[in-house]
């Protein structure tokens, strides 16, 4: 029941937030915050839960559409729980960043924000593939609205691009899901979309490869990975800050989660054969987007490209498919969720103050806004993978695990770490160091971080330091779930390797 509550609170909170705008335009944000806090508390109660049964902490399975064997099947294991916590945490941060930025139509804004997050929670908990697809699509429309209504100058184009990319690849996934369900029907004689039923389906390797590709394209578009990444820089640069936070921090992770939970376990053989290509794409993505990041003048586009680059490590870790690499992928997802969100918020708060994202206009801000500069330095260093912070643990583990399974690609991918230092430090140097000049913008609003901003940046700094210093607390949580996933494919992988 608690799982329904988690999602239901956000759906209901969204409707309430929208309605409450009539009473007072400040009420929606309070309701949104309350709903998310309540969710976070509920999730924390799951933490101590007993995970005896295959790593599942809590589950719910109710018939929904019996004609197709579709059930309302939600369940949480350590992996899902980590991502749920990330979602709620970043949701609260996003509300914080929108607190004074969103003044127009705030009711509808928080409605969309909460509904997007509700969809994300659904994606992270659904164990029926129809239900999963359902939530996968539910995330889209509110996110489209967030970009299209509260975005910047080119918002319509960016929102439409985001929507078309994710929706069309989503359709391909739907065809794959249906094909898989159909083969289940042929083999077992009844319809089912349940994850555990579909795990048992055997198909010929050609068909398996095609079905797997449907999933792969949908997930890597969301992640995103070159060549499906081109929507992301547009979406990020046009989205309002809170939208970017959700997009970079949470939405991208649904793609990675989909790969870990569905794409590989459902199609182990095809995934194994496909792994070299996937890892090559990951390496390409890491290097190409690092290079692209370096070429940007728009701060948000730059961060967006670094985001794609870092997601390459996640893909690399997933297709290495061993425990260390998977742990690395999960850690990267969590740490990147915080660091990328923080960087987008910094870019957003700069834009809010000087109404520009063009780095050519900026320079010498350290003297003017020291606290903001220090915070920016911290998150840049975190993003480039400084030991002692979360991102380092994630990327290091991912590379370490991948090293065992595909040496050349791992070596190539490792260069990404060097490029990351180059562009991160370049950004710091460009914006915060050098000569200060206000000739290109009006600096009357350029003030340092206020208390509210310090509070949420502080929380994110703490999070990253915790992940970096004591990663075991996170690794323990996801270990059982990942081992369970690995165990399911172990037999097959070992036989194929032997042959």
């Amino acid at each position: 029941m608690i799982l329904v509550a988690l999602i239901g609170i956000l759906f209901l909170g969204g409707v309430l937030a929208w309605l409450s705008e009539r009473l007072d335009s400040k009420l929606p944000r309070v309701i949104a915050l309350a709903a998310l806090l309540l969710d976070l508390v509920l999730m924390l109660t799951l933490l101590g839960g007993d995970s005896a049964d295959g790593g599942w902490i809590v589950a719910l399975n109710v018939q929904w559409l019996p004609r197709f064997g579709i059930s309302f099947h939600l369940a949480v294991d350590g992996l899902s729980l980590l991502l749920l916590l990330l979602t709620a945490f970043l949701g609260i941060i996003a509300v914080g960043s929108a607190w004074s930025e969103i003044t127009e139509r705030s009711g509808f804004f928080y409605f969309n924000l909460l509904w997007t997050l509700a969809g994300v929670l659904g994606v992270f908990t659904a164990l029926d593939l129809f239900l999963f697809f359902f939530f996968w699509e539910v995330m889209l429309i509110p996110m489209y609205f967030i970009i299209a209504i509260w975005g910047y100058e080119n918002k319509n184009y960016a929102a439409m691009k985001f929507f078309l990319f994710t929706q069309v690849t989503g359709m391909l996934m739907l065809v794959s899901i249906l094909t898989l369900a159909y083969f289940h029907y042929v083999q077992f004689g009844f319809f089912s979309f349940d994850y555990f039923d579909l795990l048992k389906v055997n198909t010929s390797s050609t068909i398996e490869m095609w079905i797997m590709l449907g999933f792969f394209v949908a997930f890597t578009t969301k992640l995103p990975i070159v060549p499906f990444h081109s929507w992301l820089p547009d979406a990020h640069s046009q989205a309002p800050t809170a939208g970017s936070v959700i997009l970079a921090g949470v939405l991208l992770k649904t793609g990675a989660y989909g790969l870990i939970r569905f794409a590989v376990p459902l199609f182990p053989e095809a995934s194994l054969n496909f792994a070299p290509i996937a890892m090559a794409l990951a390496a390409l993505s890491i290097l190409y987007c690092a290079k692209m990041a370096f070429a940007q003048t728009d701060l948000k586009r730059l961060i967006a490209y670094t985001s794609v680059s870092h997601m390459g490590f996640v893909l690399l870790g997933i297709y290495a498919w061993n425990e260390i690499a998977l742990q690395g992928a999960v850690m990267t997802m969590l740490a990147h969720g915080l660091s990328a969100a923080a960087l987008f918020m910094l870019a957003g708060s700069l834009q809010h103050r000087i109404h520009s994202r063009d780095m050519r206009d900026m320079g010498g801000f350290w003297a003017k806004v020291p606290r903001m500069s220090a915070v920016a330095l911290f998150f840049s260093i975190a993003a480039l993978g400084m030991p002692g912070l979360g991102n380092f643990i994630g990327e290091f583990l991912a590379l370490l695990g991948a090293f065992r399974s595909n040496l050349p690609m791992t070596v190539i991918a490792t260069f990404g770490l060097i490029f990351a230092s180059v562009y991160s430090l370049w950004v710091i140097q460009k914006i915060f160091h050098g000569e200060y000049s206000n000739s290109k913008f009006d600096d009357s609003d350029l003030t340092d971080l206020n208390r509210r901003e310090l509070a949420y940046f502080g929380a994110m700094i703490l999070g990253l330091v915790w992940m970096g210093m004591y990663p075991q607390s996170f690794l323990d949580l996801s270990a059982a779930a990942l081992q369970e996933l690995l165990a399911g494919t172990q037999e097959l992988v070992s036989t194929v390797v032997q042959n």
Partner: protein
Amino acid sequence: MTLADLLPLMPLLIVSATAVLVMLQIGVRRSHTVTATIAVTGLLLATLAAALMMSATNQQVTPLLIIDQYSLFFTVVCCAAAMFIVILSYPYLARLDDDKDEYYLLLVIATVGAIVMVSSNHFVSTILGLETLSMSLYGMLAYPLHSKESAQHPLEAAVKYLVLSAVSSSFMLFGMALIYAQTGTLAFSSLIDLNSNAVSLSDSYAIVGLLLLISGMAFKLSLAPFHMWTPDVYEGAPLPATAYLATIGKTAMFVVLLRFVVMSEALRYDAVVIVFSLIAALSILAGNVLALLQNKLKRILAYSSIAHMGYLIIAVIASYFAASTISIEAVTFYLLAYMIMSLGAFGVVSVVSSSEKEFDLVSDYQGLFWRDPWLALIFTGMLLSLAGIPLTVGFIGKFYLFFAGVESALWPLLLVLVVGSGIGLFYYVRIVYHMLLPVPTSPQFPSATGERLGSYGVLTILFLLLLLLGVYPAPVMALIETVSAFI
């Protein structure tokens, strides 16, 4: 004919009696309100009667009509939709400076035709029903003709529809004649005994007849390449009439097509499969691509209806190759879904329009979200449903279609379906985007007034249905599974 035969015909008789009653009432005293009330009451009674009879009736009444659960299901759908259209028409026609009453008469008679069509398993009843429906529609499409503001558009639309519809009817008749020449009977099932590998000329009448029949039906369903009339007729006709043509007109014809294809097993012929596949792919692509270029809502909806009919044809093709009945259920569910969302979309446009001025441009709806949030929300729901987004009935419908396609392994058509849906998103979401823009300063349509309360009620019912069937469709799915077994 005995009383036992008359009882299953109850809905048909009620609607026919309503037509007579409306005619008499017009003769006694003209009153817009009274006429509309009689029409609504009659259609409501017919809906209830059909719904109550549904579980217990399965009977061939004369060789012409089959009254089974399937036909009763669509009788319910068509009568309810007709009732909704009457309610939507009332404020639309309220300021027409001409007699308004005959419009309702035509509408009720058209519904008689629709009921006959959905109950038809014989060529004679098909033609009877189809002509009853079409003849009434000509009148409805041209209705505001004598109005002061009279544009030529309704007349142009009606004449266009009259000519093309008559031509397609004659195609169908000729096709039926050829089939009759070979089989000697006019029942749908007549084709079933024919050898599909016929080589001699005398054996091949049927296949030519079949293709003529299909092209005639494709005309009526505005499937590409027989779709040219659709946007012009939709654009020129008054909105409620367009809504009637687009929903009940299409649905009734589609039920005939489905029953015919299933009963005659026409898909045994490879030629028929190829023709259907081409028609489906062309309709999906042409409909969606051409809709991108439009600025008028009626034209967008016209092209989108072409695409949706194409989607449905995929499930019709699937029905022959699949072992289960899911593809027939898919057609049934999608027709229901299409009825709801299409009626809703036309309803929104007609609720802000009147016979004097139709607000039909996409830009007219700019900022609607901030002026009339409820109406905008309903419209958004309808459009997203047409695009097949979850939480709406359109998503479940599309899911059914995809499932039917996968089950019969129609991969090329599924690819077209994916591409078509992708393009479709673009123009549906564009309308939503316009509603989200800031409110413009240019003149706008007025907000809701008291006389439009009924229309708002109808839209609200449709919207709730849209959500209910999108979130918890299990009971309706079960019902459709039951009724689909009868076809």
